[in-house]
């Protein structure tokens, strides 16, 4: 490692080739459930990390504890990454995309009380009500709604944004 720090490429190759089986073995031993390609990804992570921080190695100190600390840290980092990803993913075997499937028939964004929604829309100021009706209920494009209402596209965007915010507030306070 000392030679590698001094820029000796062939010594560095020899060192990395020597330690790779050890790192692979260590990772395999500590993460028995991982697939071989995941282990290899981690091995590469460890090698890249070692390369990035090779200046931190002190030749007066033993090499293996230094390497083991990097490998252990990258392993823990990988586990944290995996846990974060797993926490934000929902494992679904078959996505319900056909109408034969019950899940696909569920109206996901339907509001539970249409009557309250109708009252809340009626209570909106005229400009916001018109914008919500045209853009959200009739699903017109911004250009079509602008042509029909005589309002500008920017004004429509602002009105619909405020309208939706007002509806959300009204419906959350009057459940």
């Amino acid at each position, binding site marked *: 490692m000392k030679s590698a*720090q001094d*820029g000796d490429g062939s010594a*560095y190759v020899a060192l990395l080739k020597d330690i790779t089986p050890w790192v692979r073995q260590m990772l395999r031993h500590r993460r028995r459930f991982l697939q071989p390609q995941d282990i290899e990804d981690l091995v590469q992570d460890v090698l*890249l990390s070692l390369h990035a921080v090779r200046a931190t190695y002190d030749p007066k100190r033993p090499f293996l504890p230094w390497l083991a600390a990097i490998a252990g*840290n990258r392993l823990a980092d990988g586990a944290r990454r995996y846990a974060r990803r797993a926490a934000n993913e929902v494992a679904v075997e078959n996505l319900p995309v056909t109408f034969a499937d019950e899940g696909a028939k569920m109206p996901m964004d339907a509001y539970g009380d249409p009557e309250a929604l109708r009252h809340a829309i009626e209570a909106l100021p005229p400009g916001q009500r018109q914008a919500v009706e045209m853009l959200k209920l009739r699903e017109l494009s911004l250009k079509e709604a602008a042509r029909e209402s005589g309002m500008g596209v920017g004004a429509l965007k602002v009105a619909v944004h405020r309208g939706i915010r007002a509806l959300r507030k009204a419906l959350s306070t009057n459940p």
Partner: protein
Amino acid sequence: MTEKTDTLIQRLAESSAPVRRLRAPWWRTIFWLGIAVPYVALVVYVVSPRSDLIAKMSNSQFVIEQIAALATGIAAAVAAFATTIPGFSRKFLLLPAFTLAVWLGSLGHGCVQDWIRLGPEGLSLRPDWFCFPSIVLVGAVPAIAMAVMVRRGAPLTPHLTAALGGLAAAGLGNFGLRFFHPQDASLMVLVWQFGTVFVLSALAGWAGRYFLSWRALIGGSHRPAVG
């Protein structure tokens, strides 16, 4: 897949330019102090030292608190640098813990003394918003130097390293502050000054992962393409 690892090894070897080894944490701390202390002295000089400084230097309470603040800054710096060395000994973390305990203990002792001397009046708390920006000002250059230096190490414990670095800079900032800010009531020092040091260290610790990360260090340049 092992072929890809072999390719990676070749690429790493090709880009293995000589590197300058990091010195031991003690040496790096001395180097950091070489940057930080002159700056702190300059700020104290520019803001102008408090008028009773000479008298204060013979007050044992003041001297102990200042030594403890300085020792905490130094010990936290040593520990911060040590945490960036793979395989570092956890014993380094005891250093700032010990000096911090002495600092807190001296402030606590001061509070008791104030209580005995002045009664409840000695423990009155007033707003002193001067402390926060002053400690930030005095600790700014030490903090920047610390951030640059710890980034040369390994980001093994980003939050801990950054919190220790923040403690080092803020501790030194508080050490400098007391040379020009005439606030000696122990409870005020404890709440406003030590409180500021604590808040700044916590903020630094929180921000650690943004400037100390493997991702920033490694990037994706060397990894062989998949497939």
